[in-house]
């Protein structure tokens, strides 16, 4: 809805979502951090890094930050900044892919489940309950056991974890929207169910889903980092923040920068998506507005 009526009954234009988001402090900060990360990730994708991220400079192992290596080097003499940049590309690629898959699948399942209702809804939700009974990291590990390790498999593993969450988030609003009069009207004029769902139900249930996307991105970042930290996600020498943190174990006493920078990268990334999610919730879903 882009227009509303003011007290005099005249139509006034409501500020766009972006403008309202920028007005909220947390939303604006979140957006800035996310844009920064996406930019860094694109740099990594285009291979614009000071050094190739897996290139070893044996003579310069475990160097502290200097003008030659801005953030120092690791135990193989690889440039930390280059690895951090490429790591953002990998971490964000995993996070975005997971959310794209689980968001689409989960929304379809949740919407279909609520719209069809009855036994189908019951069965689908019981199936989702089964997935909820596993701690996220354990469920992801179970999928890794079946599929094996690697970047694409990590994506599937995390997508499996978040699909039920999207299904639940999508289901709620559909239950109330499908009882609305305009849906009954659409049915009465003989509109096809698929058309009703995609053109009338879904657009009116998007707000909580968009908020969920932002929050799921932050969780996916955390889960990927966790899996990679355990050695079951993205495989070295390919960098990711989790891989880098895991590699810093045992030598962080002599080279603390190896732990600090990837740690900060994860924290700031997660914080950015969390703040953006909170900001979006305030803007898009006034009912869910947090108490300030």
């Amino acid at each position, binding site marked *: 809805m882009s227009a509303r009526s003011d007290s005099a009954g005249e139509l006034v234009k409501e500020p766009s979502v972006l403008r309202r988001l920028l007005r909220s402090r947390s939303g604006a900060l979140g957006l800035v951090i996310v844009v920064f990360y996406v930019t860094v990730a694109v740099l990594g994708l285009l291979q614009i890094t000071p050094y190739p991220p897996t290139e070893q400079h044996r003579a310069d192992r475990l160097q502290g930050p200097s003008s030659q290596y801005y953030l120092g080097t690791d135990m193989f003499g690889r440039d930390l900044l280059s690895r951090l940049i490429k790591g953002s590309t990998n971490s964000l690629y995993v996070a975005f892919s997971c959310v794209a898959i689980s968001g689409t699948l989960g929304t379809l399942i949740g919407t279909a489940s609520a719209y069809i209702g009855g036994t189908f809804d019951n069965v689908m939700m019981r199936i989702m309950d089964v997935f909820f009974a596993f*701690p996220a990291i354990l469920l992801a590990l179970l999928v890794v056991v079946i599929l094996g390790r690697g970047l694409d498999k990590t994506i599937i593993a995390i997508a499996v974890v978040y699909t039920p969450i999207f299904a639940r988030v999508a289901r709620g609003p559909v239950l109330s929207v499908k009882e609305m009069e305009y849906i009954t009207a659409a049915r009465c004029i003989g509109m096809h169910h698929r058309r009703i769902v995609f053109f009338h139900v879904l657009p009116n249930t998007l707000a909580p889903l968009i908020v969920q996307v932002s929050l799921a991105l932050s969780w996916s970042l955390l889960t990927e980092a966790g899996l990679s930290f355990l050695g079951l996600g993205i495989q070295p020498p390919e960098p990711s923040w989790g891989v880098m943190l895991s590699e810093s174990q045992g030598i962080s006493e002599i080279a603390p920068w190896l732990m600090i920078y990837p740690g900060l990268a994860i*924290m*700031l990334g*997660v914080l950015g998506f969390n703040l953006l999610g909170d900001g979006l919730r305030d803007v898009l879903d006034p009912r869910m507005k947090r108490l300030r």
Partner: protein
Amino acid sequence: MLRYLAQRLVAVIPTLFGISLLVFIAIRLVPGDAITTMLGTEAGMLTETQRASLEAYFGLDKPVIEQYFSWMSRVLQGDLGYSVRHGKPVLTLILERFPVTLELALLSLIIALTIGISIGTLSAVRHNSMIDLFGRLVALTGLAAPNFLIGTLLIYTLSVYFGILPNAGDYTDFTENPLKNLGQIIFPALTLGFSFSASVMRTTRSAMLEVLGQDYIRTAHGKGLRPRAVIFGHAVRNALIPIVTLAGVELGYLLGGAVIVEKIFALPGIGRLTLNAISQRDYALIQGATLFIAFNFVVINMLVDLLYAAIDPRISYVSKK
């Protein structure tokens, strides 16, 4: 109450059935045949006859559905299978490790609730003050920092600045030497506790803000009760419900073993047991442990539901017909 309990028990049966089915199917989906996955590289040394007799012994020559039901009937009798790697029954292994996980879970929950509820309450009572700002900052940091980062930082700080190595040495049982045991478990518990305190803090703060705006709080203030009595006697108790839900879910997860933290601090709990089983491809153990963890989770959630009635007298499970 008993009737409600019975209803809840019946309601969780489909979920438990689904969990068992999922775990069973997941292990069957692992590439390669079951004997190889069970024995690992040693399977290469088997002759055809040995392989066939092993398949018959484990019932692998039967149809899949029959395999599921015979596995399930064994599970219901407490037989979760046999770990070839450890040379012990899976249930024995799990029960050996469970006390460690339980102790860690309870201790971290206590830490999280103590930090979370006190800062959250203070944040709400002194709304928009410096304390509130500090509380919100701590919560945001706690939410954004993964527990393996907090753990790594803690180990770094302790070893570099205090000369303590929290992840070194063999694990000592509580019954053996309580003091040494606590010394080993306190740091992982702090790691998990701080991680989780962030969500407790946020939940407490928003629940308290909501409660503090209610009429009965104003009435309590109006009739001259001391502020402390209003907050602890009226507000906190009413704000507890969402916190109990959160704590219940978290306890369920923690009892599943904090995989990463147990690994960082070298604690022999369920999480590390499962993780090692995964890297050693010990499928009997993976199957048993995941089943145990998921069952735990469902049962804890049911118990939390029952706890609501104890906290909030308005919730009654007795039907009023």
